[in-house]
């Protein structure tokens, strides 16, 4: 069983992403409504993959990526950015900080599933 953490401040988008991911029998999800909640959850939660938005109140996606990449506990957890087409520059920065992939919102479920399959060898 793989655990994926969804970090996204819009509840609607969060549930859409969850629906797409839980199509896989091998996947369960945990949700964080902000970068803040994510860093609160991380120390106590086994996570195999993080899917994160960039633009969020308090701690944004880039700060979350930087945080994880600087700590050996989470250094190797893959990160996928899901953000709007306007955040081109931000996504580029996210990848520079160590995110593994990015997807543009509104996204095609198959794109996300494809990346997850590849990462987990499903």
């Amino acid at each position, binding site marked *: 069983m793989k655990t994926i953490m969804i970090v996204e401040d819009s509840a*609607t988008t969060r549930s859409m992403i969850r629906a797409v991911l839980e199509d896989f029998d091998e996947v369960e999800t945990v949700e964080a409504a902000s970068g*803040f909640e994510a*860093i609160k959850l991380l120390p106590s939660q086994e996570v195999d993959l993080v899917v994160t938005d960039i633009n969020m109140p308090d*701690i944004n996606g880039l700060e979350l990526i930087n945080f994880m990449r600087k700590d050996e*506990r989470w250094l190797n957890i893959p990160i996928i950015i899901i953000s709007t087409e306007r955040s081109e520059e931000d996504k580029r*920065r996210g990848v520079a900080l160590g995110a593994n992939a990015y997807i543009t919102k509104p996204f095609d479920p198959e794109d996300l599933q494809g990346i997850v399959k590849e990462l987990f060898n499903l």
Partner: protein
Amino acid sequence: MKSSESDFIAECEDILEEAGRLLLEIQESAERGRINPDSINALFRAMHTLKGLAGLFGHDDISEISHALESLLDDIRLGKSEMTNDAINLFLNFTDTLRKLISKPKEERTDVKAYLDEIDTFRTSGKAKRKEEGMESLVDESIMRVLSEYEEHRLKTNIKEGMGVYMIKPIFPLTEFDTALGELTDRIKAMGELISTMPTTEDVPDGSIGFNLMFGSPELLDTLTTDLGYEVEELVPAKGAELAPETVVPTGGDMSAEVLKTSTSMVRVDINKLDRILNTIGEISLSRHAIRRIWTEMTEQYGHSPLVIDVYKVSQNLERKIEELQDQMLEIRMVPVGQIYRRLSQVIRRYSREVGKKIDLKMFGEDTEIDKYLAEEIVDPLVHIVRNAIDHGLETQEERIKAGKSEVGEVILRATQRGNHVVVEVTDNGRGIDPERLKKKAVEKGLIDAGTDLNRKDIMELMFLPGFSTKDVVSEVSGRGVGLDIVKDKLGSMGGFVDVTSEKGEGTTFTLTLPITLAIIKVLMVKVGGETYGVPLSSISETLTIEHSTLQSIENRKVFNLRGDLLPVTWLRDVFGLPGEAGERSFAVIVGFGDRRMGLLVDELLGQHEVVIKTIGEYLDDIKGLAGAAEVGRHEIVLVLDIEGIIEECTTRKGALHV
């Protein structure tokens, strides 16, 4: 599906309401010369959420419009375009457009292409030519690469405006970092703008988390270090007086010095912090009662010795200072009613357009002051009443012309201070309320029996019964089945009440009366059946002794003739089912105002006290007639009466309080 669709509409309306509020805030701050970037960012987020929501429910038109608005806002928040007056008006108009679209069924909506073109044209024309020069070199690269495009823009703007850029690196235990960080960032926001919150576990002990907080502020390094209590690192020094002439908003003059001044001499404070201070003051004033008690006991024992007189002087001085402190504190919490008016006028403009009724809005008493907390709480009830006035109160234009009235309906908001209360009236000159129809409807709804004998005032009160206004009478405009009973409960919970008067054909006035402030109140301590209760002084008009033989009985209710007015009276002992017999005379505490006055009969009057009211836990919640508990010296607890509740119970349900 139907219900989720109505959830969707409700959620959209909430978002648009918030957007409207933000726009007003932006408009006001633009007039003052500097727009708060947080407001623009919040508006951007609101449009973003709306877009997602509409897309999910298949409302493509709404989704597309909010997407276009979101893009324009993105340009503005990234400094690629400016929030000009034209832009503000565009957003105001489109919030209205969206609201209208949402309330219409999908199939009745027309093509939105024209709307999208309008936004797009505006966006292309407004795109600023100015390009931000590279300032990366000023701030370390390891920080720059973590910033989002928006944060980078805010950093540059802060530097351009001559703000200093600073960094502090607090470390918090993992278990409590959220509250600690929240408090710290609030303090930072009071002194400038928080640009970035970067969490880190580098060089941080286990079980802790560190943050690199970068913020811009006009303050100097020393001030910040002292005020924040952290070691502050200066990334870019503040330029102070030699500000770059360019500000975020074109103001036609150099406002930077002014901006700098206001941001240093004004502090924005969380109302909860003021609450805490007020609570502490309340507790201090309890110990002042104790000192007074000690002084009394000392006088009894030692007479007027120099020591006793000293204690007396000190306690007098302390009392005066505490009172001053209380007054000053309460003053800080006061805001002018005009703040509420602005929000109401927006609602009124919008609904009048929506229902197609022309309305002349008049507002009086904008400067009347009211506690910030109460001001916030009273907005919803007022919005409800105003919507009612527009929707049910005012006639259509044709009806008005037929009735010989001006086709423009009138809504008047009037705020006045009366003693310790603020009275807000909402008056319309519409069709008025027909008591007969009102009564008929209450009978139809099974709220009263057809034969019930009610006077005019009782009939008006029917409107406030739960279940009176239901879906079939509440139109789309005046709300989603929220009744006036909610309004009444809300006011009651704040220690206020609502009244209505109406003349058929001439109009209706709703009167909302509420205390100027909460928290500390003066009470008159009374004793009845061996128990002590506090009666809020603000509800008392006078006290007197009455002989029981002078009481008269009218329709099985005891009344008392007070200078020609017949006031109902009630034995407080009966209200709470206390033991004891009524003697020949009692003290009567006259409570309430206007025609809601009544007398409470008690055994003894014990004097005034200032108390901090605390709510009584849930288990006593069901007992009507109690507002809360308060501690008065010697760890004695007294129950403070909810006078409105008691008047309510005694006058409308005729003594139903008997336990």
